[in-house]
C-alpha cells in the first residue's frame, strides 16, 4: 500500500474496497484492495471471464449489493453492511460506461450526453458539454442518433455521457471489447490520452493484457473471485508472483526448474537437463518455475550468431499457428517454448514442422516464480 499512500499526497482520493458476495453458493467473491485514485490515473481490474471483475465494478457503481464488507471512496462510505449503509447509484456521483455502451436509442448524441444534467442547468452547462464533445471528437455528430454511428463513436459518446456530470470516479467495463482489432489499438491510445486530459480517476475492467498495459497505471488481478496480485501492469505481466497469475496474464511457457547458481542478479537454472540464465529472485528455496513470454523469444537458424542474449538453445519446430497479425511458433528444445514472430520471418526462415531451429532469450526476459 506504499504506492497508494504516495499518490494520495498529490490529490488522489483513497478507494478502499473489502467485499464478499455469494452467488447461490457456487461462486464466492472475496476481494480487498486499497488504492489511491489520482486525477487521470487508471486502476485496471484484470481477470478472465468469470473472475468476478465486472461484479466488483458493479458493486462500485451501486448496481449490485454486497453480502458483507465495505466500499469507501474519498472518505465516504458507499456501502457498509455492518453500518447498514448503502448509497444508491444516483447518489454516488460516478460515471459508468457499461460493456456495450448502452446508449439511449431514442435520443441524439447530444441528448445522450446531456441526459444526466437537469433541464434547468442545461444552458449553463452548454459550454462544458461543447468542450467535452470537442475533446472526444463528437462535435459534428451531435444531432446523429446512436444507431447511425460507428462502434468507436458510440464508445466516445458513452464516455462523454459518463463525464458530463463531472463525476468523481469513472467506471469502465471492457470499454474496447466491442470494437474490432484495428480500431481497438487506435482507440486504446486515444482513450489513454482522453482520460489523462479529462483528469478524472478511472477504474477499468478488462481481460485483455494489451488494454491493461496500454491504459493502466495500477492493476489488480482477479481470478475465481480472489485477488491474486496488485502492482503496476508491466510488473505483473512480466513478473507474475505465482503460477495462478502467470496463467491468468497468459505467460505462454511455464516449466519447473532448479536454481543451481546465483551471480550478481543472474541465476543459473536447470530445466529438463539444460542450463538457463534468468533474472534472479530474492527467495531462499531453489525450486522454481521458469516463465517465458513468447514475444521475448527470438528464432535462430544455423549456427548461433553473436548476440547479447545469454540463452541459446537448439531445438525442433513443432508447429506454427496464426496469432492475430503475428505467428505463434512452438519449438521443442528439451521442453516446449512458444515464440511470437512475424509472418515474413516464418517465410524468410523457411520454417516447416520438424525442421531444426534455435531459440535465444535474454536472461532478463526469463522470470522465476518460487515453487
Amino acid at each position, binding site marked *: 500500500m506504499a504506492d497508494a499512500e504516495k499518490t494520495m499526497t498529490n490529490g488522489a482520493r483513497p478507494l478502499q474496497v473489502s467485499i464478499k458476495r455469494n452467488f447461490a453458493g457456487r461462486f464466492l467473491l472475496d476481494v480487498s484492495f486499497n488504492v489511491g485514485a489520482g486525477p487521470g490515473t487508471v486502476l485496471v481490474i484484470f481477470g478472465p471471464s468469470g473472475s468476478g471483475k465486472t461484479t466488483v465494478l458493479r458493486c462500485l457503481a451501486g448496481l449490485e449489493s454486497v453480502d458483507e464488507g465495505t466500499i469507501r471512496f474519498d472518505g465516504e462510505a458507499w456501502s457498509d453492511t455492518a453500518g447498514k449503509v448503502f448509497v*444508491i447509484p*444516483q447518489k454516488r456521483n460516478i*460515471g*459508468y460506461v457499461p460493456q456495450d455502451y448502452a446508449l439511449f436509442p431514442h435520443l441524439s448524441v447530444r441528448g445522450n450526453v446531456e*441526459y444526466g444534467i437537469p433541464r434547468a442547468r442545461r444552458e449553463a452547462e452548454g459550454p462544458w458539454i461543447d468542450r467535452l464533445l470537442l475533446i472526444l471528437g463528437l462535435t459534428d455528430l451531435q444531432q446523429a442518433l446512436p444507431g447511425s454511428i460507428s462502434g468507436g463513436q458510440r464508445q466516445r459518446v458513452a464516455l462523454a455521457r459518463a463525464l458530463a*456530470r463531472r463525476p468523481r470516479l469513472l467506471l469502465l467495463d471492457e470499454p474496447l471489447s466491442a470494437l474490432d482489432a484495428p480500431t481497438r489499438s487506435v482507440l486504446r491510445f486515444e482513450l489513454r490520452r482522453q482520460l489523462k486530459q479529462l483528469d478524472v480517476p478511472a477504474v477499468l475492467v478488462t481481460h485483455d493484457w494489451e488494454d491493461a498495459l496500454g491504459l493502466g497505471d495500477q492493476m489488480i488481478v482477479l481470478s475465481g473471485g480472489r485477488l491474486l496480485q496488485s502492482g503496476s501492469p508491466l510488473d505483473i505481466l512480466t513478473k507474475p508472483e505465482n503460477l495462478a497469475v502467470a496463467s491468468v496474464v497468459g505467460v505462454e511457457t511455464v516449466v519447473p526448474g532448479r536454481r543451481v547458481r546465483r551471480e550478481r542478479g543472474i541465476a543459473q537454472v536447470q530445466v529438463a537437463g539444460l542450463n538457463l540464465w534468468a533474472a534472479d529472485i530474492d527467495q531462499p528455496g531453489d525450486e522454481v518455475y521458469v516463465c517465458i513470454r513468447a514475444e521475448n523469444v527470438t528464432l535462430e537458424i544455423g549456427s548461433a550468431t553473436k548476440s547479447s542474449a545469454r540463452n541459446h538453445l537448439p531445438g525442433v519446430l513443432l508447429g506454427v499457428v496464426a496469432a492475430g497479425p503475428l505467428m505463434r511458433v512452438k519449438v521443442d528444445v528439451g521442453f516446449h517454448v512458444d515464440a511470437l514472430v512475424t509472418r515474413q520471418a516464418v517465410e524468410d526462415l523457411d520454417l516447416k514442422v520438424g525442421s531444426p531451429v534455435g531459440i535465444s532469450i535474454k536472461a532478463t526476459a526469463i522470470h522465476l516464480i518460487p515453487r
Partner: protein
Amino acid sequence: MNWDAIFTSLRLASLTSLILLVLSLPLAAWLAFSRWRWRFLIESVVALPLVLPPTVLGFYILTAMGSRSPLGRWYADLIGSPLPFTFEGLVFASVIYSLPFAVQPMASSFAAVDRNLVEVSWTLGISRLATFFRLILPSAKNGVVTALVLTFAHTIGEFGVVLMVGGNIEGVTRTVSIDIYDQVQDLNYAAASRTSLVLLLFSFIVLAVVYSLNRNSPLWPTLRKR
C-alpha cells in the same frame, strides 16, 4: 343504421381505453420490474378475462355491482343509483374485461427495455420514477400504442359481458354488437349487414392507420427486431 348504438360503442371504447391507460401504466410497470416471488399470481388474475367465458365474467361483475355486494352498496350510497344496467356499469365491466389487452403489451414492452440502459440512467443521477418517464416509456411507446388499439378494438367487439351487465337499453347500453344481434333476431338482415360492414371497415381502418404509423417497428412485441 342505428347511430345511437354506434355512438354508444365509440363512447364506451374511448372511455375504457382512457381509464385503462391510466390504470395499466403503473400495473404493467410493476409486473415488468417486480421481483416479488408471488408476482405470477397477480399476472394470472390480470390474464383471467382472456380465458373466462364472457358470461362467467359478466355474472361475477354483475354480482359484484349488485346491491348485495359491499362494492355495489358503496357505489349506490355514493352516487345515489345502482351500477347494473347503466352506462357507468358497462364502463366498469369493460375495464375489467379488456384489462389483459392493455396490461400485457405494456408489461412486455417495458420488460424488453435493455436493463443496461436503465442502470446507466440510475448512475447518471436519474431517479427510478424519472427513468420510467424519460427512458422506459419512450422506448416502449409501441407497446403502449398496441395496448390502446387492442383495448379499443376489443371493447368495440364486446358482446357477452355487455349483455350480462348492461342489458339492452336503447341509447344507454345498447352497443353495436348487441344491435346487430337484435337485428338478426328480428330477421332484419339488411340492417345487420349494413352495421356489420360499418364495424368491419372501422376496425380495418383503425388497425391500418396504427400499423402504418409503426411500419418500421412491428407492433407485436414477440416479433420486434432487437
